[in-house]
């Protein structure tokens, strides 16, 4: 009994579609009812949002492809300017109409041009009596283009006076999109996250041909047990499943256990997966390295992850500059005299000051300091005399390019530049050793 029913489309196509989009049947049927029949006008713009890998793009693509609805599919990250985006839509329109002549591409700078060219393209393709779908993936990028792009897309049906529906796909909610005035509110549709059951069902679908579905499903169950807490990204999970499956099969291949021996298999794979969570999943070591390790049965301990290489060699004065910058960033100015002067006079002890200082500095983050203060502290922490040569100054700039310091308010170089120290206490400790 198929859930999807629509008079306009043949039942077997719908059945096929349903098999392709597991756990998203209700959304698909809703979309279908919004779309209506081919020649019917649909809602001008639809906004679909949901978390990463909740199947937005996939569902739209399979839906449009299986039912062979005329459509244009564009990723807004890839076409990062409005011009590129509009031209790409037109190119896709033209190229699908006639493969032979696709060279003539007309520059399209504004929405006005776009509307005109779009009408031409639709007529030349003979699509006047069908709904054309323009899907804009990662639509949040639209906000960074010209201000009129997003409202124009929302009202494209009205502007072009033709049968078109714009579908926006995004990971953020519509409220963050809405421009101030004159905006047509699209129909919003939410794709909820896949639950663990859904994930299990989807992941188990494509099992390797050598093994039975049940065997693979058991494996996925274990995998989800380990990873579900940290990762619900379907793509990532599938990747991890593929990476570690060979290890799971090892006892079976060696003949130590049969496929039903779940407990044994679990014992074999579980520590392995935990290790994977700490390394591959975080991209501490790459997946190809991981595979090689698996292959050689080596210990992952031999391979140090990216974070293990925190040590950094710095020239002598760069170290001191960095330490001075750290001190300047985290110590209030009024303590300088107390810390860096030999004869600082009496230390006033006020309870209030102490209490205040203890709570703040590291929680508040680095504060900006002027160049002069940095140099003054440098001179006082380095034992021997430091000549203020160009070498010292160029080291400050190179520390900025290395992102160990950052410049605050770079409006005027002459006006005493101000810096912030961006490294952590641990880093400074390692350097100061």
């Amino acid at each position, binding site marked *: 009994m198929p859930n999807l029913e629509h008079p306009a489309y043949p039942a077997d196509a719908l059945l096929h579609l349903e098999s392709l989009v597991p756990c998203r049947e209700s959304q698909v049927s809703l979309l279908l009812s919004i779309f209506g029949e081919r020649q019917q006008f649909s809602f001008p713009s639809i906004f679909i949002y949901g978390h*990463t890998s909740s199947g937005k793009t996939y569902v739209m693509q399979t839906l449009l492809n299986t039912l062979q609805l005329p459509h244009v599919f564009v*990723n807004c*990250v*890839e*076409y*990062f*300017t409005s011009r*590129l985006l509009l*031209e*790409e839509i037109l190119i896709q329109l033209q190229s699908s109409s006639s493969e032979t002549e696709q060279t003539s*591409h007309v520059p399209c700078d504004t929405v006005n041009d776009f509307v005109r060219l779009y009408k031409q393209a639709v007529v030349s393709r003979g699509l006047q009596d069908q709904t054309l779908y323009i899907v804009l993936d990662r639509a949040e990028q639209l906000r960074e283009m010209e201000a009129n792009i997003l409202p124009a897309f929302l009202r494209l049906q009205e502007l072009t006076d033709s049968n078109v529906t714009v579908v926006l796909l995004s990971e953020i909610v519509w409220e963050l999109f809405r421009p101030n005035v004159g905006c047509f509110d699209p129909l919003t549709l939410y794709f909820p996250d896949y639950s663990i059951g859904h994930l299990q069902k989807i992941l188990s679908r*494509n099992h*390797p*041909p*050598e093994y039975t579905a049940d065997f693979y499903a058991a494996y996925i169950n274990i995998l989800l047990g380990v990873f579900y807490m940290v990762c619900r*990204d379907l*793509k*990532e999970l*599938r*990747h991890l*499943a*593929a*990476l570690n*499956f*060979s290890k799971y099969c090892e006892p079976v291949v060696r003949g130590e256990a049969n496929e039903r021996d779940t407990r044994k298999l679990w014992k074999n794979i579980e520590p392995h997966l935990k290790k994977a969570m700490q390394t591959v999943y*975080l*991209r501490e070591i*790459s*997946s*190809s*390295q991981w595979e090689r390790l698996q292959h050689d049965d080596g210990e992952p301990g031999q391979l140090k992850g*990216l*974070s293990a*290489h*925190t040590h*950094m*060699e*710095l*020239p*002598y*004065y*760069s170290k001191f500059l960095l330490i001075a910058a750290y001190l300047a960033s985290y110590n209030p100015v009024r303590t300088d005299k107390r810390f860096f002067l030999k004869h600082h006079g009496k230390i006033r002890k006020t309870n209030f000051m102490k209490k205040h200082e203890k709570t703040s500095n590291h929680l508040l983050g680095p504060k900006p300091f002027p160049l*002069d203060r940095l140099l003054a502290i440098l001179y006082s922490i380095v034992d021997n005399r430091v*000549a*203020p*040569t*160009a*070498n*010292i100054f*160029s*080291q400050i*700039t*190179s520390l900025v*390019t*290395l*992102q*160990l310091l950052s410049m605050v308010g770079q409006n005027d170089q*002459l*006006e*005493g530049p101000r810096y912030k120290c961006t490294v952590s206490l641990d880093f400074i400790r390692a350097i100061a050793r």
Partner: protein
Amino acid sequence: GCFVFKPSAKKRRLSQSTAPDFRSGNDKSEDAELRFFTCQSLWNQIKSETEKVQEDLNKNLLDNLVSFLSRSHSEFQEKTTEWTCQMKFREIPTAALVLGVNVTDHDLTFRSLSDLLQNNITPYIALLEAKDCPGIKNLMQKLMGQLMNCYIDVDSLEDEDYVQVSQSRIRCSMSSLIKWYKGVTKKTDSETPSQKRTSSSAYWQSPPVVVIFKDMESFTTKVLQDFIVISSQHIHELPLVLIFGIATSPMIIHRLLPHSVSSLLCIELFQSLSCKEHLSTVIDKLLLSDQFPFKLGEKVLQVLINIFLYHDFSVQNFIKGFQLCVMEHFFSQPLSVLCCQLVDLKKRINFLSHDQCENIRRLPSFRRYVEKQESGKQVALLTTDDFLKEETQKLLEDLHVYHYNYVSVLRCLHVFTSSLPKYPLGKQIRDLHCACLENQVWETEEYESSLQLARMLNKSDLVTMLQQCVEILLSSSGKEFDKTVEKLKEFLTQFQNLEEAFQERDVSISSQKELQKKTDLYHLQKTLLELKESRRSKKLTKFEMLRFEVIDFIDSLVRKYLVPADRRTLHEILYFNTATVLRGHLNAAPRTALHTALNNPHWYLKNQALKCDGGSISNKAPDICIVYKLHLECGRLINLVDWLEAFSTVVMAAEASDADAASSDQVDDIIHARFIRAVSELELLGFIKPSKQKTDHVARLTWGGC
């Protein structure tokens, strides 16, 4: 990157105006041209040698990278349809290349990397720098420009106009890049049977496209993220490989990229040699070799090493500094014409003019040498040019031999000192080298203490060290060391014959065993005392004797061969030791220079009238100097009216004396204008700025005057 300065510009200036410049440097011009050519040929030798050294050092890293790249898209090549490959997410292969903080050196590495890749893996390489890519659009433009250009380079010229026409109106998007890539690979496919085969068959059918981010740290997060997201969507059509050049630590990848983006990458880490090791090798190969007649003196070497360790960690800069030394030496020392290989020496000495002979006689080290000779020889040396030439040749040959021996013995000594606890003479051979050049090393405390420590070495260490020494001395193939090597070998055999010594020790152990048997307290005490007594006066074991002998022998070697170079006669010809010049060139101190110029204009202007003493302000100095000196006396905020008053007082000081003008309260317009100009000049130099707190005040930006 900013550990930058460019002595290369200076070199260019010198080499363009070539020999005439050398000639004008000194009036005795005969050998200027010869010196210039010697300098050039020597530098070319050194340069090729350094390039070779650096190539060797990078070889390992580059080989690893090449194998990574060739592995990275093997799936793309084979187009496998296996289950795992289908299921797995296609990540972008990425090499994280940690190169160290000396950003200036990276260029060289990247250049050799791209050359190597071009020859072995792929013609499609793009080098991106952060400063060219403030946005994703610029990045794509740059990337496509570089890739399509290289396509021209590889292919024949007939396509050139076609590409250029299309490039002007090409769309900067990934899809056009993919189209281009498909076109290019298809073309090479169809062309393989033709004569192009030789050039293109080195690559595979679809070579990867390598994108190198030179300075990962400086890229903005957004640009990188967008680029990675875009290219990961097309990884199936475009086999892309990224290389991140990282100066700090690989942590930066996680800091720049969120997990959603970094999960699109398959990152492998490659680490280059640490720059300190790099320097050690360069010093070892350049300075501690007898290939080049030119040598660095202690102070100069110290300056160069200090700049390296304290400031920039840049081996390139070190080599540039070395180049500067070579130039300075040949430029300033007329006798440097004799700084050549031994083969040419005789001819050059014979061609020396009388003036040059006088130059030799003027050398301090030569004078010292003359004073030590008996009177007859003294006269001959000072009056007869021919005799002097003969003597010079002999002395220079001696100097070459000295250096030769020096290096070998230095290495031997280093074998010993580098294994001592706490390294009293330094861990690196360069430290030892500096110590030995500085003064007679055997007179220093550090040497004393390291000998003390060496006398406590155990047998196995000592034996391996001696073996190493033998190897070093044998490889040096000097005639003088035959005896030394024999002696060392003798020591080694003696060590092997030490069995008896062990037996002796066994005896003493057995006496201890006896001691354990006794239970009586009184006896025990007595025997213990006896034992202690005997140990104090006990003769040294054979091993200890031998150890002393070995150390004494090494000591004698040191005393004989490691004499500092500046004690040797004629060292001025081969050793460059004017560190002050070098320091002046390399340690630029703009703030100090500015202060000197403004505070003491005589220093630069050389005008007698400006010569002033102490803190007094001369009214003849340029206006800006007067204003500067006055401003030094002020606090953070300077009242402009007071400043003007003071300025006019100083300027009027001279005139006031002869014409006692009554116009004192009204400042002259001209003086006013001069004052304003001087103040704005100071503002331009960054000493003051207008203050927002008080309208008629300016704020000081500097403190302490330097």
